[in-house]
């Protein structure tokens, strides 16, 4: 638990728009942060990308819709989508219940290693959240 009251796992990298990224064996899993999930409150629809879609760092990849509003989902990195979390189609509430685990959004094969430096560490992201209050 970060000092902000939101979970910010140390082993992930983040965007200012509240997405996270985690690399395992060359594949990057992405999702939205605990802060984003709690701010949206009740996620009721997730529009997922398709396997094979090309995505660009910080460009739209899908949408997350809560009872109150629609938010765009931005890709933390450029690359090709390899897998999407189909479970979210029938259980969008997983994004709220478990934003870092069962509520992951998609996996991608990154195309540009140099883009990692544009992401925030857990510490930087916590500082970024503090500025939003």
């Amino acid at each position, binding site marked *: 638990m970060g000092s902000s009251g939101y979970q910010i796992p140390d082993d992930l990298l983040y965007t200012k728009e509240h997405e996270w990224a985690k690399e395992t064996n060359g594949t990057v899993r992405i999702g939205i942060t605990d802060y984003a999930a709690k701010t949206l*409150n*009740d996620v*009721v*629809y997730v529009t997922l990308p398709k396997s094979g879609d090309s995505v660009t760092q910080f460009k739209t990849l899908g949408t997350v*819709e809560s*009872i*109150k509003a*629609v938010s765009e989902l931005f890709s933390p990195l450029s690359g090709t989508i390899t897998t999407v979390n189909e479970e979210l189609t029938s259980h969008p509430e997983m994004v*709220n219940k478990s934003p870092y685990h069962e509520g992951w959004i998609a996996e991608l094969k990154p195309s540009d290693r140099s883009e990692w430096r544009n992401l925030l560490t857990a510490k930087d992201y916590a500082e970024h959240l503090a500025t939003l209050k």
Partner: protein
Amino acid sequence: MPKTTQLFGYHKDHAKLTEFAGYEMPLWYTTTTEEHMAVRTKAGLFDVSHMGRLLVTGDGTQEYLEKQFPTKVGPQPAGKALYTLLLNERAGIVDDLVALKISDTEFILVVNAANASADIENMSEHLPSGVQLVDITGKTAMIALQGPHAQEVLQPLTPLPLRELKRLRCAETEVLGEAAVVSRSGYTGEDGFEIIVRDATVERPENALRVWEQLSKSSAPCGLAARDTLRLEAGLLLHGSDMDQGTNPFEVGLQWLLTSGKTGYVGSEAIELLRMSAIPLARRGVVLDRGIPRHGFDVLDASDTSVGTITSGTFSPVLRKGIGLCRVKAELSAPGGKVAVSVRGSSEEARLTTPPFYDETVYGWKRHAQP
């Protein structure tokens, strides 16, 4: 700086806050779905102290209000809660409100927070000498307790026999020893009560907080997000979204509030003209299998031509689908009809309905009256 209600001391420790109509209000305490379903199946608690409360007193009160409302006010016994409208001269809807008749010479009007000052301005224009119109919003607090368990939650706190208080009736009584007006009313579609705590200011909020905290032990505090999904699921209109000064009662389905034969109220001449004309638009509900309609989205016919507009939309926690209220061309408005809603460029199939959106044998205040 936004204003706060008497119950802000509770909200700031328990809720995600939002600004609404100039007030810092609770948006949710837990989740919208949880709070919504608490009201549909048990009981939920809302701070509605931000809503305007206007006290009208004096010998000519009843005659004066008769000239303000398109709905017949009297002769009614004290203890009636009357849902009605304020119109402008063109029959546009200035506000919708509830008029609580405390006595022949005392009414409390409960109006929308965002419209309170416009209402006062409009009503003051016609105020005769001998009738006083006073804004008591800051001197009183108002709490809505809604849901099928509302009566059993409130009864231990008041000597008023609630079983005898019928829907849209009100009475002066005490709640936890505090002077209060209790009405059997609300805007969620469920049975329930609205409680005006007579003596509670932002500087001295203790009386209101005591009532709220006691009620919150056996009901779920609910924020504005759930208040919106509940009223929409019940098919109840929100002023400023589903209607405004530019819409008349006929095109939003509120003609049942116009007492037939009544004349001499503000807007009555325009209403009589409208009665004799064809109304091009009708209010309907829409249900989508995919996507959520939002305010301003287009309603489309089979050839993707716009035939109407969504005036408010949300996700229904009961149906687990997107629902909305719309105004559509009257000739295409048959309930059950198939239309589409343009959701951010994608045309989503939708079905026209007559709200409420839920099954009235399972949810809503009428359920117990069903065979």
